[in-house]
């Protein structure tokens, strides 16, 4: 357990939560929460595309919100850092694709093993090694590439829905410039909702339902592990944690508990495996929103992440209702809000990617992540990291931080000799 970082603790968390709550972190938390709720659409479309029953997909999303939200309540509260939890989107696509091939129970068994691998990596303290092998500009290049799609989604509605898109984007610019006290996203959200109300959005398809996560027993098979469990473990350890940690560090937080995030994610993934869910990990886009300047001063941004957890847990049983509500809003509404929310995240991710070492590797990582390249069924974000790091080693090896590592190894080695 010695590698797990120590946090502030949970005892005083409720009191501190009320003390630190303010308009900035509340609005960032609400926006990130809405963003997370809307991510369920990805699960639903992936499930539908893979031909999975609607009932299963709904349970999947309910578990996602409930279990991820529960862990997302505890982790930021314990560390007082903006570390919202969700699940891996690339993992979700893999999961949906593998179920028809190996069966649901076997897929969940592989999920259990992927979680166990994360726990082992975290307990062994290998996170810092993984992160040194894949340096920050390359990780951020991948993050920027993945997020860029949200950015282009924000621009695309200009083609078909010029007026609402323009109104919302202008509202964001104007309030960013002239209303210093009110977070621009809240203004944009309000303006957007008012516009929708006036343009007569149709809410008749909204229906109420209540369901809790249900237990499903995992089963084990080698096929499922190789095709899905191992890639999932790589995605969780090699990508989701570094992406989240990278974002938080990029926003100016110095001490980020990389091992603990992996550990909690691993435990969460193991729990998920019993409830029809494929993973629990730090949530990159939501981390971006919760840790950004939109969420107020640094020491109070953790509140935003806790709010995300609260929203998830409360919304989970009612997701059937929430989903029909989201469906009632036009698609571009969520896209524009998410795009604007992520604008500063994309900006700072690109800033970190392209203003230092590893320029070639970072560029390739960025391009690969955008291209949506898929090899062996594993998605672009994974290859962006691996190929970016390999290319960087080939072309710009001098940029790697191995001199320090070698120093540390030598010290440890000589200490052992003495002992």
């Amino acid at each position, binding site marked *: 357990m010695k590698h797990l970082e120590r946090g502030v603790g949970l005892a005083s968390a409720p009191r501190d939560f009320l003390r630190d709550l303010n308009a900035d972190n509340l609005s960032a938390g609400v926006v990130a929460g809405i963003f997370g709720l809307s991510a369920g659409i990805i699960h639903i479309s992936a499930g539908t595309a893979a031909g999975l029953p609607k009932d299963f997909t709904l349970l999947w999303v309910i578990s996602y919100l409930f279990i991820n939200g529960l862990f997302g309540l505890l982790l930021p509260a314990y560390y007082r850092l903006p570390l919202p939890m969700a699940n891996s989107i690339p993992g979700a696509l893999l999961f949906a694709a593998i179920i028809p091939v190996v069966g649901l129970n076997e897929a969940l068994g592989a999920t259990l093993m992927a979680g166990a691998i994360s726990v082992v990596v975290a307990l062994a303290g290998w996170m810092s090694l993984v992160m040194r092998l894949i340096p920050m500009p390359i990780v951020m290049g991948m993050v920027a590439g993945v997020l860029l799609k949200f950015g282009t989604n924000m621009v695309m509605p200009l083609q078909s829905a010029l007026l609402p898109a323009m109104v919302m984007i202008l509202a964001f610019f104007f309030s960013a410039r002239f209303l210093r006290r009110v977070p621009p996203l809240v203004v944009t959200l309000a303006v957007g909702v008012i516009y929708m109300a006036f343009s007569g959005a149709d809410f008749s398809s909204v229906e109420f339902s209540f369901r809790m996560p249900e237990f499903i027993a995992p089963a084990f098979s080698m096929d499922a592990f190789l095709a899905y469990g191992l890639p999932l473990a790589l995605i969780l350890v090699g990508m989701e944690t570094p992406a989240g940690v990278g974002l938080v560090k990029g926003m100016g937080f110095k001490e980020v508990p990389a091992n603990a995030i992996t550990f909690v994610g691993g435990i969460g993934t193991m729990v998920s495996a019993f409830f029809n869910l494929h993973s629990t990990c730090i949530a990159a886009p939501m981390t971006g929103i919760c840790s950004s300047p939109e969420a107020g001063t640094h020491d109070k941004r953790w509140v935003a992440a806790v709010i995300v957890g609260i929203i998830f847990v409360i919304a989970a049983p009612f997701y059937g209702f929430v989903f029909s509500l989201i469906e009632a809003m036009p698609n571009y509404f969520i896209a524009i809000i998410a795009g604007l929310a992520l604008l500063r995240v994309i*900006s700072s991710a690109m800033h970190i990617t392209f203003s230092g070492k590893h320029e070639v590797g970072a560029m390739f990582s960025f391009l690969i992540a955008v*291209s949506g390249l898929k090899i062996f069924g594993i998605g672009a974000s994974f290859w962006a990291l691996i190929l970016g790091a390999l290319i960087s080693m080939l072309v710009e090896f001098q940029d790697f931080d191995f001199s320090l590592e070698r120093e540390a190894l030598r010290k440890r080695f000589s200490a052992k000799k003495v002992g």
Partner: protein
Amino acid sequence: MFKDWSISAITAGFVAVLVSYSGPLMIFFQAAQSADVSNAMITSWVWAISLGAAVSGILLSLWLKVPVVTAWSAPGTALLVTLFPDLSLGEAVGAYLVAAAAIFVIGVTGSFDRIIRLVPPGIASAMMAGILFQFGVGVFVSLESVPALSIGMILAYLVFKRLSPRYSLVVLLVVGVILAVMLEGASLKGVTLSLADPQFIAPEWSWHAILSLAIPLVLVSMTGQFLPGMAIMRSAGYNTPAKPVVTVTSLISFATAFFGGITTVIAAITAAICTSKEAHEDPDKRYVAGVANGIFYLIGGTFAGTIVTLFTSLPGEFVAVLAGLALIGAITSNIHAFASQKDHLEASVITFIATASGMSFLGLGSAFWGVIVGALAYNLLHRRFTGRKSTQVSDSAR
């Protein structure tokens, strides 16, 4: 001229032409593919741009006694890829003529430097990066359909970039052709020496073409070619004025436009090869490299048909990968230029996103909207009004 002759200068001129034909020309081929025109028409285009580069390069190098390397506007050809086939050939030629006229006015009045200062630097490089970005992504899209060829070419690019950066594109071209023949079964049997037969295209006028092609073409040619091109000349120690270069190239562009030649400009990617020490020890004798460069363009233009059949007999992915790898350096430096600064970063990122999204609205391309949205964001978010400091954004971005 004859007393200043040297092998190194002629080699430099040759390499510059070879690099141009192996890299930037690929974008023009992609534009031709999206316009779905005949080989004879592509040949005429290649003839026109080569001739434009040849005549202007030879004239300017001999006149100014400095190595002026000219070429066609590479970011301009990148613009074409997204605009075709909605844009007709006649409309494109009309837009080329408008652009040439605009650049001529800018050159004659000497307002080049003033216009450059008007566009915020981040917005200009963000638009450039956005236009070129899709070519970089294209490398990895091709990787899925032809993995062996693409991976081989990427590896060759990386290895030779490390070993000899200057010749890496040329080596990449050779390796790529060999790989394409071996792995993809491309046949080079049809490649024979043939003279180009220029085809006249009657210009057509439309607002759509002027707004979405001519204006961005002038902008990217100014910021993406003339600005870095002149900077390369200056850094090599040549105090060449911009006026004659801009004026002569715009006049040549006017003539070549009728045969499908896009705007002739000062070279940015290849200029450094001819202005550097490798061309000749004595800076006063490097102008021979500029002249040689022109002569090799003349030869290339004459046999444009051969060049076209060579590249059209290779798989489309080959062209995509080659173009993407040739542009990665330019994409990186442009993204670096706007992303490494905190100053008006968000407006630049919006410009980049809007341009790279490839959206089109009211028939106008994404490069145009990128600049519009970016300028709007720049003025609303970052611009300092009289005496007042730009407040929240620049503060909270830190």
